[in-house]
């Protein structure tokens, strides 16, 4: 282990542990107005008229007519309105905000607002959808020949459900408009995304917009795009309030029912097999985008680029579509489209191996990519692919072969056991050329006269420890004690745009920029004076340029790798399963802090296990999300954490700080297929959807009894 990997006490540990950290809900509200949002009760309707009740003094309404700039929230495409004007497109679509000093009075008044709607036909089920927001095609090799020469063709449809980020702190922001300048602060991942959205909606120049991230209680992607939407709404209210700050903090129900979730998917895969090898793969990937485009384009891109998993398949045809439905817009969630396609491709490989009567792991190993292999988009795996060694590690840790053989025999009693394994990657950093062409990250180091150094960057610590790890890097290069390097929550008035806190990029990309900045500062160091150095992103030379219109080139400079085994015991009386062990090896390059990385790996793995099983969420026939509380949307508790043995396999990345690459999302991505593979062995039947419930298990038990 490198010295930099040694764990330290997190920079924000004491403040959080002692309750001193200021979250957006902690600010004194005596001089603040509160906002309450009126939302559509219909999945699709035209707004014919609205009647507001007489409002007491100090109360006012805010709707699309109050938007001083353009009534669009800038995300990727800008089709999300700040407030609905002509139509509402999903249950929960924000129509207006009622603002005033007293929350109970706001609730009373909001109930008196009358809206006349003309109902329009709504598309709830993605299979009925006729609008593709995004429609991508790419491929390689000779599909026709592979198909013509195939010994066998396999076809299967895989489905995955919603997943709610379930961060502890709900969405919340405060906006204040003063002397021609708007300030928005609160819970968020991407201050400069919010900054850009505000400039457009308020029609202000960038210098008249200030965004401050407050201590944020979890994000997991849920605070990537959504704060841009809420910020515009609150800022328009503050603009109208003229001098009085306006605060909106969601309750759990509002947050769970109306904010973005992981895209449900339907992946139809066809594979050609010749001489025991998959020669071609046709992947049709459908994501349910919801009512507006938000982040669907980029989520879908990452999903389909991973369509063939970690396998080297000569011919590939991929189609991906993000389909509009009149349901809550889906967005970012740790893994960003990849958990859906990795579930499909891993289960497909299991099923083909089973049909060919070969052990799935051996079958997978025979197909695995290696260094130099061509990626799905014609790029290269430039660096060593450590999967074989990682598979061996997990095999040993879990006693995989022995268990797999024992559980394959006839099992008696009321318990059925199984063990399964999955292999995956996660592309480190932004997909494609986003980093080079769009983000163009800038960081600064500011040295004070007394020798202390402050990091100026726009990364937000959302629990992943980025404050600590960035400071460790800078302190290490400057040979300073850690307490001499500081990193405050980003404030766009003070920090340059080093990009959003997403895509497992912050440490790898921004961390490397800061490392270089620190080296430069060290070479220029002058005692007793203030100094500033600045560093700009530069794409590594080895990268094959990526063209998104053709899906050609290196989608990622490098990859983080994951191997996970899951063991289960199923109660045949109830269908309930218990995870009796999980063993995983993760390669995230050099860990910049061992405790932080292991925490990320275990937490992400657990989210992946929850995604596969208990986290059931659905829109009903009218398009309403009914699981909007923690008693109805079930996530794992401490009691549900299984035995977890996680170890790190370090394949250092030369262009990341000390060899670090993306870490945050990786552990979630491939947990589900390992779990489902274990259940398949225990239940002796195929699984092609998640979440997979106890009820689903009981059905499989019943079927295998009949057979």
């Amino acid at each position: 282990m490198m010295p930099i990997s040694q764990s330290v006490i997190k920079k924000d540990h004491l403040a959080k542990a002692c309750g001193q950290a200021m979250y957006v809900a902690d600010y004194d509200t005596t001089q603040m107005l509160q906002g309450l949002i009126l939302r559509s009760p219909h999945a699709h309707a035209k707004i014919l008229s609205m009647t507001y009740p007489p409002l007491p003094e100090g109360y006012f309404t805010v709707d699309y007519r109050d938007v001083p700039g353009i009534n669009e929230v800038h995300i990727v495409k800008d089709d999300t309105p700040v407030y609905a004007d002509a139509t509402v497109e999903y249950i929960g679509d924000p129509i207006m905000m009622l603002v005033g000093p007293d929350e109970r009075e706001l609730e009373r008044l909001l109930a008196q607002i009358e809206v006349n709607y003309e109902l329009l036909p709504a598309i709830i089920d993605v299979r009925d959808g006729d609008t593709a927001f995004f429609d991508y095609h790419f491929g390689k090799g000779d599909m026709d020949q592979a198909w013509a020469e195939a010994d066998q063709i396999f076809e299967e449809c895989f489905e995955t459900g919603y997943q709610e980020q379930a961060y502890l702190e709900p969405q919340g922001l405060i906006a204040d408009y003063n002397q021609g300048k708007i300030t928005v602060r609160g819970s968020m991942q991407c201050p400069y995304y919010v900054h850009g959205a505000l400039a457009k909606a308020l029609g202000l120049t960038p210098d008249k917009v200030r965004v401050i991230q407050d201590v944020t209680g979890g994000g997991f992607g849920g605070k990537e795009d959504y704060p841009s939407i809420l910020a515009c709404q609150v800022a328009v209210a503050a603009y109208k309030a003229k001098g009085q700050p306006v605060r909106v903090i969601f309750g759990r129900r509002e947050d769970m029912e109306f904010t973005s979730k992981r895209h449900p998917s339907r992946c139809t895969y066809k594979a050609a097999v010749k001489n025991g090898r998959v020669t071609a793969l046709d992947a049709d990937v459908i994501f349910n985008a919801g009512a507006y485009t938000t982040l669907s384009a980029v989520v879908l891109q990452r999903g389909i680029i991973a369509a063939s998993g970690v396998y080297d398949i000569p011919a590939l045809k991929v189609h991906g579509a993000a389909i509009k439905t009149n349901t809550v817009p889906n967005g970012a969630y740790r893994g960003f489209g990849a958990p859906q396609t990795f579930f499909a491709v891993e289960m497909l490989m299991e099923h083909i191996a089973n049909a060919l009567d070969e052990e799935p792991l051996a079958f997978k190993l025979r197909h695995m990519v290696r260094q130099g292999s061509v990626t799905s988009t014609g790029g290269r795996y430039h660096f060593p692919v450590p999967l074989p060694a990682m598979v061996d590690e997990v095999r040993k840790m879990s006693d995989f072969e022995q268990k797999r053989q024992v559980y394959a025999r006839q099992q008696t009693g009321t318990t059925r056991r199984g063990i399964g394994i999955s292999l995956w990657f996660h592309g480190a950093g932004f997909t494609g050329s986003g980093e080079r062409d769009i983000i163009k990250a800038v960081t600064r180091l500011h040295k004070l006269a007394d020798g202390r150094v402050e990091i100026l960057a726009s990364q937000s610590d959302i629990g992943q420890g980025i404050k600590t790890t960035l400071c460790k890097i800078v302190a290490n290069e400057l040979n300073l004690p850690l307490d001499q390097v500081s990193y405050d929550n980003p404030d766009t008035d003070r920090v340059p745009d080093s990009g959003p806190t997403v895509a497992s990029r912050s440490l790898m990309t921004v961390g490397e920029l800061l490392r270089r900045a620190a080296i430069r500062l060290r070479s220029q160091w002058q005692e007793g004076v203030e100094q500033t150095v600045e560093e700009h992103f530069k794409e590594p030379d080895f990268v094959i340029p990526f063209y998104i219109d053709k899906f050609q080139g290196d989608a990622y400079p490098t990859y983080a790798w994951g191997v996970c085994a899951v063991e289960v015991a199923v109660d045949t009386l109830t269908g309930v399963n218990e995870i009796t062990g999980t063993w995983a090896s993760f390669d995230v390059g050099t860990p910049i802090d061992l405790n932080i990385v292991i925490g990320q790996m275990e937490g992400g793995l657990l989210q992946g296990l929850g995604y596969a099983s208990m986290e059931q969420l659905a829109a009903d026939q009218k398009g309403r999300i009914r699981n909007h509380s923690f008693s109805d949307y079930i996530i794992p508790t401490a009691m549900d954490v299984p035995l977890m043995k996680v170890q790190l396999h370090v394949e250092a990345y030369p262009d990341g700080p000390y060899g670090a690459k993306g870490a945050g999302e990786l552990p979630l991505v491939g947990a589900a297929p390992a779990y489902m593979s274990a259940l398949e062995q225990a239940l002796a039947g195929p699984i092609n959807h998640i979440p997979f419930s106890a009820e689903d298990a009981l059905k499989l038990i019943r079927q295998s009894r009949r057979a």
Partner: protein
Amino acid sequence: MVNGFSPATLQEALEIRARHSVTPYAGGTDLMINPDPDAVYLFVNHIPEMKQIEQRGDQLHLGAACTYTQLLEHPLTPAILKAAIDLIAAPAIRNEGTIGGNIANGSAKADSVLIFFVADASLKLNSQSAERIIPIRDFYRERKQLDLRPDELITEIILPTKWLDHYYYKKVGARKALAISRVVFAGLLTWQDDVIAHCATAFGAVSGVVLRCPELDALLIGKTRSEAQAAKAGYLAAFGDMIAPIQGRVSAEYRKEVCLNLLTDFLTSNGI
């Protein structure tokens, strides 16, 4: 600001209960989820008479304001009740929540209530002027409909302990803690001199109130092993007719299948 009364004795509590329209509040773990700003609460969590645990002959008297944690830690608490309590919610809620509250909530998913049903417990209900002792099965009229008068408090649960030692208990929740039962089953069966001296079963979370059918369990009482084995199919079929689960977060079919699987396993584990 919460409006309420904090009586120090049962007598005082019953006087307030008679004079005012109050909501009894013991642990408050159900009430605080949707607080009613207009409610006036009668805090009964510090009334000594309602916190006692006492064995009298074959009956265990449990004060209605006993918390789950108190019972979990008490040497007199029967193992079957501990097994159920151990899976209720999480430690923080078990520290506050009470068995009287679990009963008064009126839900067929209440995990301690299932044990009181299978044990044929009775409830002591007190008002200023009277005291009633009624079987818990009569107390629950239907879902959320309880035989409790506006001036009464549930003060005690009287639990017959004679048949509790040989028990079967299984809860199916969506996870291992903080989980509302999707199906929950308890069974008691005691052999004496090679015949079944006692058999009692109860199913939670399948209908408006806990399902307890002593007339069906009576089919096995007094039977030898071979007679019980012969009666098994009829017994299961009779329960199959009785169990008509409600559709909820899991399907009615799943609930029924699990109920019958557990009932079968209960018999199997008793050698039947």
